[in-house]
């Protein structure tokens, strides 16, 4: 699976309260989430983001709450993938479960507005704007299979149970 897009860069320790504040999480309407995504961190994000863009961050992206509304809000706003130097555990798992591709690349030096291409099967990232490549951390097979099914809902619908490989 290959995802290509333009990046929006943020820093370290972006917590789930800043991705989507708790006061907006009680909804099943994804456009409610999209309307408030990242608003306390970057009030301009909503107007800047275009369908297919890629979010890039530093360490510990998505720390804090277990709210799945965080990756859902990013997905609903048009974000097609997230790259970070590292992720908080629950966020990473939630993103894969809802079919939002995420990749950990500890050494990336991606800047805001770069055009990048992520090859999820190979686990690497090509930065066309700076002619650079970064290696991503290998995901366990169980996660690769869930992502390949486009999320845990489809995976369990098709398989009926968890499988390790």
């Amino acid at each position, binding site marked *: 699976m290959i995802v290509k897009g333009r990046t929006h860069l943020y820093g370290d320790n972006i917590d789930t309260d800043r991705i989507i*504040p708790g006061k907006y999480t009680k909804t*099943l309407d994804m456009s409610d989430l999209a309307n408030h995504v990242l608003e306390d961190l970057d009030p301009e994000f909503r107007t800047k983001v275009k369908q297919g863009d890629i979010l890039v961050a530093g360490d510990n992206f998505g*720390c804090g709450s277990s709210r799945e509304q965080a990756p859902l809000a990013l997905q609903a706003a048009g974000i097609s993938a997230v790259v970070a130097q590292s992720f908080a555990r629950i966020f990473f798992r939630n993103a894969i479960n809802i079919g939002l591709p995420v990749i950990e690349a500890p050494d990336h030096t991606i800047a805001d507005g770069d055009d990048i291409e992520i090859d999820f099967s190979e686990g690497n990232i090509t930065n066309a704007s700076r002619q650079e490549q970064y290696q991503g951390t290998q995901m366990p097979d169980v996660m690769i299979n869930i992502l390949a099914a486009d999320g845990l809902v489809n995976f369990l619908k098709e398989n009926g149970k968890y499988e390790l490989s």
Partner: protein
Amino acid sequence: MGQTIIEKIISKHAGKPVIKNEIAIVSVDGVMASDTTAPLAIKAFREMGGKKVWDSDKAFLVIDHASPAPNERIANLHSMMRDFANEQGIKLYDVGEGICHQLMVENGHVKPGQLFLGADSHTCTYGALGAFATGVGSTDLAGTMLTGKTWLKVPATIKIIFEGRFPQGTSAKDLILHVVGMVGIEGATYKAVEFTGPALEDLSLSSRMTIANMTIEMGGKAGFVDTTGLELPYSFEDIKPDADAVYEKVITVDVSALQPTVAVPHSPDNVAPIQDVVGTPIHQAFIGSCTNGRLEDLHAAAEILKGKKIHEQVRFIIGPASQEVFNEALSDGTVEILSKAGVKFIPSGCGPCVGTHQGIPGKGENVISATNRNFQGRMGNRDSQIYLGSPATVALSALHGKITDPSTLHKEEILI
């Protein structure tokens, strides 16, 4: 090779011995979701083709995050939860009965040695009674409601040994804030944390819950408090690590040197000894949450406020962790002391902790809170400042209208 406690609990639930970094499919003893996470979990459960929850005695729903419903949209989500609970025959705790984590422990839905999943990051609280409990998102929870299982990577364990005794004016909250500051907000990511040592042996279950609760503020997958000295209304097996268990890291903390500690804006690991911020003006004070909303926390506040009035500039809100806690505080006179001092009680639930409704601070205001997170905007306003402290620090600061050090309580009292 020897096993850590966490490795032992996971092995039992995987049906084979496992050690750190292995990936295993495990059976789950119980699941819980709140009104923030249950609606999405119910939706995902149905989309997976789910008809019947794997075991109706092992799934719990709690309406606590926005409770009572502040608006029509949330009221409808609450109805959806009630309908699902009725249809499935599962237990639902409704408006005002308490905070999900308090209810799971208080009502014995989780026990030592069990493996429990909650669709809430502070599910790690149940490590206080020797369970492996971790937070997951809604879709993962739906997967477990369907299959009774989940997959997980066995975490490596960081062991923290607490030596010495708690000095006057300090509590479990000061200790865990100190540890979060030391380890850092991502210092335990993907790891379990085992808390042990003689300083913990006399601690109540409530204080142990305060400690386990904030494991997630270090990124931890689960916190586990050594069950030595733990008293529960039923008998249980004390699980101990093997002598040759392998730890990621072992840290020793001398509790005798602990000072009242606060986390300053905008991160729970941004901690400072209280002297650094003494005198900061306070506009709102809050005691409550799954960290510090229990009877001993209300007692700590009542001890300070007995026969006094809080500062006129301060709004002091208390949200008991459960109705059971409130009822006990009512019977023993604590509620009367606090109410006469000017405290406002709100229904048991998450309340101001999560900024959905109830007690949202104004622009430029400072809040002193006994909760676990002070991220920017956490209480509903990005332009307010949240300081985290112990219940004693919160109550004393509310009394004086500024952050005040509880270890100097006796000196202060003479000055008033």
